[in-house]
């Protein structure tokens, strides 16, 4: 029988050692409690408003306006021309997402070798050089920076320089995803089987040949899979980037909302969901192809 407090504490610690994960969990719990405290206590959090009939009345009115009830105007979803016009914007949005993934993919592909540790330290054959080490750190830093800045912030910055349209949005999405895809593929290259690349090196192949014949055949399926996964995320985000870069569905969404054309908003949301579901299905199919199953 364990009785003394010290013995109980010792027994507990033996059963549940304070691992880093456990400590982090407690730390997160503390941060969460503080955060909720700050939000709920500092002025008007809006929590109490959630339980008033006024708020729910407003929400109900908003929903019925989106459905076009209680309005003498013809709702947008009953007009074929509105569906066509919005469809054209949906096509622009799709083009923006493909362009963005293209930019991210090309950027990541071009920096693939620089960002892989096993290339820069000569693990795949070839002499380690100071230039290689510097390039490794610079490329990794560029990944971290472009990944750390959200798409919308990139877009806010880019529209200061470029004319509004598809391109600034695609660039913003491309910059953000360049960092994500770059990091993921660099990790793929670091984890792949080094034997083919070393053999090529030993036979006198340069960097380009080693990339083409030693690394790409192994890394390409994974690279394409990551790009397709990111495409699914990008298509959801194109609308948001369109808010500020004024391209595609995003601009129309914000404009219609501010003009109180709520039935048009419904049409846009339906097109948006169609794009998201369509890209999800297409990407799943292409990913199966990319794995050569």
């Amino acid at each position, binding site marked *: 029988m364990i009785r003394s407090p010290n013995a109980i504490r010792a027994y507990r610690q033996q059963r549940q050692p304070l*691992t880093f994960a456990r400590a982090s969990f407690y730390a997160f719990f503390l*941060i969460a409690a503080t955060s909720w405290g700050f*939000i709920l206590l500092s002025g008007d959090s809006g*929590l109490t*408003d959630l339980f008033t009939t006024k708020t729910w009345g407003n929400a109900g009115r908003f929903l019925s306006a989106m459905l076009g009830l209680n309005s003498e105007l013809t709702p947008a979803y009953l007009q074929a021309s509105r569906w066509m016009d919005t469809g054209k914007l949906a096509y622009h949005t799709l083009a923006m997402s493909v362009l963005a993934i293209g930019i991210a993919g090309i950027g990541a592909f071009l920096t693939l070798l620089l960002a892989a540790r096993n290339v820069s330290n000569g693990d795949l054959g070839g002499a380690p050089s100071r230039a290689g080490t510097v390039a490794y750190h610079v490329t990794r830093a560029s990944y971290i920076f472009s990944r*750390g800045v959200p798409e919308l912030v990139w877009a806010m910055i880019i529209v*200061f320089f470029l*004319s509004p349209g598809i391109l600034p949005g695609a660039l913003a999405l491309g910059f953000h995803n360049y960092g994500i895809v770059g990091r993921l593929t660099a990790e793929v290259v670091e984890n792949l089987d080094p034997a083919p690349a070393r053999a090529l090196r030993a036979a006198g192949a340069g960097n380009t040949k080693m990339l083409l014949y030693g690394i790409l055949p192994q890394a390409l399926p994974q690279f394409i899979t990551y790009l397709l996964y990111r495409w699914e995320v990008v298509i959801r985000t194109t609308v948001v980037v369109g808010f500020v870069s004024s391209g595609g569905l995003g601009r129309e969404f914000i404009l219609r909302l501010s003009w109180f054309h709520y039935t048009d908003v419904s049409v846009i949301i339906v097109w948006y969901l169609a794009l998201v579901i369509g890209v999800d299905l297409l990407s799943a199919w292409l990913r199966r192809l990319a794995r050569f199953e």
Partner: protein
Amino acid sequence: MNWGGPIIHTGGGWSAIQFLTALFPPDFSPDFLAIAFKATWQTVTYAVAGITLAVAIGLPLGIIASGTILKESSPWRTPLIASTRLLLGALRAVHELVWAVLLVAAIGLSPMAAIIALALPYAGILGRIYAELLQDVPQQPLQALRAAGASPLRVLLYGYLQMALPDMLGYSFYRLECGIRAAAIMSFVGIPGLGFQIQISMHDLLFSQVWTLLMFLVALIVLVDLWSTRVRRSLLA
């Protein structure tokens, strides 16, 4: 859509040069650093509050979608699982900022609207992943529990959750990093934080302040990323 216009708009080149030269140096004056630290803290509070709400919504939905608490013979099993999966899919199909814009239009601008907007798509993602992790749990210990006469709830608590918890926690921590970025862009609907300050500095053409804020944002993301990587490594060990 005008495709024929210039790519760089009038004055765009000048702004770009101004923006790039503003990096040397960024605005590190004590007054502005205080603003940046406050904005960083606000972004963290919104991200953490949103993620906790997302876990609170996503966990029960994920448990239902995994089908682990429902008897095989129950006639409700298939429709309940299918409808929960559909709900999770619908939640994550819409971007958090689109949720935010819609919620602000429906219930008005308040911190809670932003937190709910952040929590809804994250609940959809977390719920789906939780369901998959619960289904991947090895079956023998569960059969032992059932054979010993444990109720479905007990099997869930001491079998499924016990075994899937490290992976579930690890994934939730990974999502925290994305949550920080999501909280930062909630500025678009008028929620204070790093994104909001970036927007203000951008509109005032104070580009050296923008660089400072970008550095704070990237540093915060890197910090959370390092933390969550270490947590996941510790959980797997």
